[in-house]
């Protein structure tokens, strides 16, 4: 142990935090945005009316029939179909099908009334942000492993940070903005955002890992159930009992009547229909409902025999303590239970999490400033560029994602991919820019660019859709008003940060003139 416990914890904290920091920052930012996933999706489909009807049982039954008819044509040999049914938030039907669980699924969206493509623009909406949060836009398994490892390192960083922090209570309210050393101010900021929301940070990191714990540590279940994980999920009451395929082809009974029967048994909104082995004589159709209001994330389900349409099982979860603990952790992580007011607190806590990681990353580089006149070593230059790309680049990329949604032609082929492309194009450009510009100027310029992009979102939205704040207010469209306000708020935040960075730039220049007058370009680099 290096020089005692606290020092070794400090060492662990700074290096663990650095290694996982950039990924964690991206996970915190996109995860925080995911609290508004449905709202983002809705905003990104401006063709939808302001007020959407809650679908009736007839609509749902017909939508399910339309979906299955399409899937029979598109994926007759699939091993599973998933149908997201119309809801008040999204009137389209979402289809996902697997021919092999190791391969990416096929997807489609339909207008339930016509069976054709929906009348909304093609976009991944908030789903992109949500999936990025834990899969980082990588192939699902790889992405989840990287996210999981980073989250585990994040938990270590949190715990070692708490152990390192000498004065949690004494410095609870302390933020010395104008401290003599910049390092002191950054440390204060890091401590304040870390400590004040520590219950959230611990909860969100731990439950995030727990959500995918069985993927990261499957061996217990695999050993106990001889490799049949589905039986485990069935026995713990998380899914309806699995059915062994018959191995001979069968005909699927009409799903419309199944949907109606399911709706008579469960009062929650119907969310999804899944069909296991749709072409098999023992196909199983499961109607999955939204979870009832509660901390625990558990979906009521009704399973049907696919061939006869008879009810196999009604799963209205009444879980045993261990499963209940698990679903409560998932529920806490996702916060589906949070109404608009509590959701704001979750959002704010998420921002504080992002701020904690961001200030920590900056602190690492500030604490290792080279001596006046000396050139920064390679590692420091690398960290600085990555910090810029993550902290200033990612928000700009998110704003670009929203802008692309409004600016790309509606009929463009593979439009949803172009939107995601715009996100990564801006992110990569910002990383390259950070690599070529002097450190301090880059902070100011890139933060200003983020502010400008966020400012552009409501402007471009108003120009392209005509749903500017006045129109939204007149139409009683709270979502558009809030979205505009949030974008302006973010623009203000980044403008403020850019202003601060400009102050630091000026300060750095003054300081460099005093300490090392002959080498001005180098001094800029250093500051």
């Amino acid at each position, binding site marked *: 142990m290096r020089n005692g416990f606290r020092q070794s914890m400090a060492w662990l904290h700074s290096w663990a935090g650095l290694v996982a920091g950039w990924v964690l920052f991206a996970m915190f930012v996109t995860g925080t945005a995911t609290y508004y996933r449905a709202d983002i999706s809705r905003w990104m489909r401006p063709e939808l009316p302001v007020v959407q009807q809650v679908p009736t049982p007839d609509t749902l039954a017909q939508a399910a029939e339309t979906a299955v008819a399409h899937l029979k044509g598109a994926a007759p040999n699939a091993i599973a179909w998933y149908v997201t049914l119309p809801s008040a938030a999204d009137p389209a039907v979402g289809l996902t099908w697997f021919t092999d669980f190791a391969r990416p699924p096929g997807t489609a969206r339909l207008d339930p009334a016509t069976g054709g493509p929906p009348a909304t623009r093609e976009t991944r909406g908030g789903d992109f942000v949500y999936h990025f949060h834990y899969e980082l836009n990588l192939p699902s398994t790889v992405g989840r492993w990287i996210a999981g490892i980073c989250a585990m390192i994040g938990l270590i960083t949190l715990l070692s940070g708490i152990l390192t922090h000498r004065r949690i209570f*004494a410095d*609870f*309210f*302390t*933020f*010395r*903005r104008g401290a003599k050393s910049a390092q002191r101010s950054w440390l204060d900021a890091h401590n*304040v955002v870390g400590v*004040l*929301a520590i*219950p*959230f940070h611990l909860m969100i990191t731990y439950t995030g890992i727990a959500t995918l714990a069985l993927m990261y540590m499957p061996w217990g279940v695999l050993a106990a159930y001889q490799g049949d994980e589905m039986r485990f999920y069935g026995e713990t009451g998380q899914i309806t009992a699995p059915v062994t395929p018959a191995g001979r082809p069968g005909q699927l009974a009409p799903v419309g009547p199944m949907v109606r029967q399911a709706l008579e048994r469960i009062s929650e909104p119907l969310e999804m229909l899944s069909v296991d082995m749709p072409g098999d004589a023992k196909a199983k159709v499961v109607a999955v409902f939204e979870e009832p209001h*509660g*901390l625990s994330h558990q979906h009521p389900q009704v399973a049907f025999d696919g061939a006869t349409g008879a009810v196999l099982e009604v799963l209205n979860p009444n879980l045993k303590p261990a499963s209940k603990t698990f679903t409560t952790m998932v529920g*806490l992580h996702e916060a589906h*239970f949070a*109404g*608009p*007011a*509590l959701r*704001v*607190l*979750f959002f*704010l*806590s998420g921002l*504080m999490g992002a701020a904690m990681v961001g200030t920590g990353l900056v602190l690492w580089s500030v604490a290792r400033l080279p001596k006046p006149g000396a050139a920064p070593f390679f590692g420091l230059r690398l960290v600085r560029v990555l910090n810029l790309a993550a902290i200033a680049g990612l928000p700009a990329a998110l704003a670009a994602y929203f802008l692309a949604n409004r600016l790309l032609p509606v009929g463009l082929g593979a439009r949803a991919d172009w939107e995601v492309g715009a996100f990564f194009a801006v992110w990569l450009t910002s990383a390259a820019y950070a690599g070529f510009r002097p450190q301090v100027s880059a902070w100011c310029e890139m933060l200003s660019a983020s502010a400008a992009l966020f400012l552009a979102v409501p402007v471009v939205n108003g120009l392209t859709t005509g749903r500017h704040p006045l129109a939204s207010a007149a139409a009683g469209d709270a979502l558009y008003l809030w979205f505009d306000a949030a974008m302006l708020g973010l623009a203000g935040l980044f403008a403020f940060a850019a202003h601060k960075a400009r102050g630091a730039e000026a300060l750095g220049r003054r300081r460099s003139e005093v300490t090392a007058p002959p080498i001005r370009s180098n001094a800029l680099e250093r500051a």
Partner: protein
Amino acid sequence: MTPLVLLANLALSFAAFAALCLSMNRHHAAAFLAKPSRRTARGLRAAGWAGIVLCFAVSVLAEGWNFGPVQWLGSLSGGALLVVALASYRPTWIRPAALLALPLALVAAFII
């Protein structure tokens, strides 16, 4: 009415943390140009902790044992963040703001 419960919680937690903040020498000195007497410090500290407990009671009574603690912790983070912002930018505003927050919490609690 959840937004009102949240308002009451936030106001209470803000007032409680403001009292705790002002019970500390450094912040008291920044707000009042003098260190607090030992009695004042102890009184403020007691009031602060009482406020945090009261905040817990309000959220559990209004939101139940499931959501109450979640909302309590969330509003503690929110309230404390406000206090830190004031302590850093406008320390002299902490006391009046806390004195304003208390009746606000009371009104919100009554409407609930």
